[in-house]
């Protein structure tokens, strides 16, 4: 199995995983590989490393995908038949655009954007990045300009909120109830009964009046748009559940990352979201096999000074500890999730930060089973 097979017939690929496992790089390598095979692909990334951003032509923060020029791609060893587009998400701007799109008129949109609560808090808090990422994905899907969209998501602790994003939009804007609650003399209070008045008084007492006023306005403004939001949230959910969507988990072989991947896989299953596979980066493959570490000293003797040979052995022993660790974690991952859907990328010598590097990762992701085994064998021999 390889990424091309996983993404056969898919229109959306969502890459999830915890921080520091190479999610952004993997997303870019997937997009590059699919573009190489003739598709028009856009990768939406959250926060690429500077040098990777440069390689993809993302120096300027734009909130629309830009095409990665043929010149840039020509540097690498891959012949790209299709088109690779990339964009870096600007959460604040995406949020504003979302308000613009949903507000009944521009006056209302401006009012919301000028509201202090919205301005100060809407993008600073956790969850806003997840929400905007999904909003952008939906928008790009609607525009239907691309064969495939690859989304690099924020780290998985927050991806919990990211998965909840459609639901959160709804609950965030349980506008009717809140509006009723906040309008002391309105129909709502009568509908809620006598209990509401002391609650409201209590709320004001505890929070302070100014904050309540701002919040009231904030919720009222948004609350009026509840129907549009709900409809949109339902459509986003539909997109995430579609047959043409694939969730790809990205992990390293370290214990915490594997724990997260397992947790994430379970979460996808319980939410009925389409799990497509796991890509494990930075794997320390077993180089020792059934040989004994003792044999190494003999094999090195004569070619290196004793001191250098000793350090090479020490290094190899430490490497082997990590290989054993990885092997253990990977079998756990294979048992918990579907073993056939595990794609391993070995620990590379340096951080991936250019098209060449992406091409190296790409080789492992898109290799046929036979080629992959040969690549690993090359590594060991």
């Amino acid at each position, binding site marked *: 199995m390889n990424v091309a097979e996983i993404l056969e017939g898919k229109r959306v690929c969502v890459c999830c995983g*915890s*921080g*520091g496992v190479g999610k952004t790089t993997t997303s870019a390598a997937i997009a590059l590989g699919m573009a190489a095979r003739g598709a028009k692909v856009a990768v939406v990334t959250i926060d690429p*490393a500077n*040098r990777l951003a440069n390689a993809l032509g993302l120096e300027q923060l734009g909130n629309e995908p830009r095409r990665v020029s043929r010149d840039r791609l020509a540097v690498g060893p891959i012949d790209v038949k299709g088109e690779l587009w990339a964009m870096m998400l600007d959460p604040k701007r995406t949020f504003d655009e979302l308000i613009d799109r949903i507000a009944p008129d521009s006056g209302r949109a401006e009012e919301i954007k000028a509201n202090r609560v919205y301005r*100060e*808090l809407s993008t*600073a*808090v*956790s969850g806003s*990045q997840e929400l905007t990422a999904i909003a952008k994905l939906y928008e790009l899907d609607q525009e239907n300009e691309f064969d495939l969209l690859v989304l690099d998501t924020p*780290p998985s*602790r*927050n991806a919990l909120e990211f998965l909840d994003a459609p639901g959160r939009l709804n*609950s965030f*804007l349980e506008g009717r109830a*809140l509006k009723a*609650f906040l309008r002391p003399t309105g129909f709502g209070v009568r509908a*809620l009964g006598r209990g509401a008045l*002391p*609650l409201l008084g*209590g*709320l004001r*007492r*505890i*929070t*302070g*009046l*100014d*904050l309540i006023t*701002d919040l009231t306005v904030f*919720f009222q403004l948004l609350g009026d748009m509840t129907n549009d939001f709900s409809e949109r949230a339902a459509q986003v959910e539909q997109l995430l559940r579609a047959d043409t969507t694939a969730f790809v988990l990205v992990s*390293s072989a370290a*214990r*915490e990352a594997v724990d997260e991947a397992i947790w994430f896989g379970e979460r996808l299953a319980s939410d009925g979201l389409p799990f497509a596979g796991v890509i494990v980066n930075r794997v320390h493959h077993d*180089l*020792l096999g059934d040989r004994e570490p003792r*044999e*190494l000293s003999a*094999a*090195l003797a004569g*070619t*290196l*000074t004793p001191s*250098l040979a000793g*350090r*090479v052995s*020490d*290094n*190899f022993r430490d490497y082997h*500890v990590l290989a*054993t*660790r990885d092997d*253990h974690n990977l079998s756990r991952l294979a048992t918990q999730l579907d073993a056939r859907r595990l794609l391993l990328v070995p*620990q590379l*010598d340096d*951080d991936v*930060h250019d098209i060449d590097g992406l091409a190296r990762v790409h080789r492992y992701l898109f290799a046929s089973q036979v080629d992959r085994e040969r690549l690993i064998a090359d590594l*060991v*021999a």
Partner: protein
Amino acid sequence: MRALLDKRLLFVTGKGGVGKSTVAIALGLVAARQGLRTIVVELASQERIQGLFSENGEGEQFRELELAPGLFTISIDPQQAMEEYLRVKAGTLGQALGSSRLFQAFAMATPGMRELLSIGKVWELAQLDRRTRGAAPYDLVIVDAPATGHGVGLLRTPKTFADIARVGPIAHQGQAIADTIADPEFTGVIAVATPEEMPVNETLILADELARDELTLDVVIVNALYPARFETGEIAALQDALSKSRSNLARSALRAALSEHARAATQREQRDRLLTRVDGRLVELPYVFAEHLGVAELEVLADALEDAL
């Protein structure tokens, strides 16, 4: 670093995956060794730290638990923090509010409220005179804070709320917490980074953002630094041996050595980028080659931290 442990509240932040929790707990071990009653706080109900100390990680949720003599942990849940706050602040009325579904929905839907409630609980833990009845005070509270971007947001939330609310209890409480955070005698911020491009970038950005809020980055901890096993002058010998050796095993080992040398060199370039910025406040922690990061490995890291103090 001694001065670091003289503070009462430490925020440990950094990019995801750099070992924040590990460093927070190792720091907790150092503090507990020095006789400080210490608590390590996890936010957003992660509950991972317990798991480091006991495989089953069972136990009551969101309670203060003793991990080792003098070392406690708690995982803060915003909702529970809210109920507790309301109970203490507003008595029966608060209790009624806290159990109102509508009020809960309102509070949790308010942008920033989760952060405010979480940091409010952290603040409470750091008070000598604890709001929670009968609760013993801590000498040191170490917060395993969210990833860098969100971490700064967290530190900023109380001030933002204080500014927006202007008057009333939230403004009061927000200001009190903000003052505490701004007090360098009381509060410290520690950034953890692995010596790689992205974590280093984020740390540099964090330093800027903290400076903008007139907060200081007390210490940067470079985590998981590979040992410098080989001199650059030895690389030619390794390459030569690689080309000549006929043993697969020797070639694997030589390739692993060259690979680690390359990574170690890249790591040191990244560390040096940090050094130029935070000279004198940089602490290095070694890469732990272990199958599982357990108490023994945490003690090793604690030793390294203690030496750096």
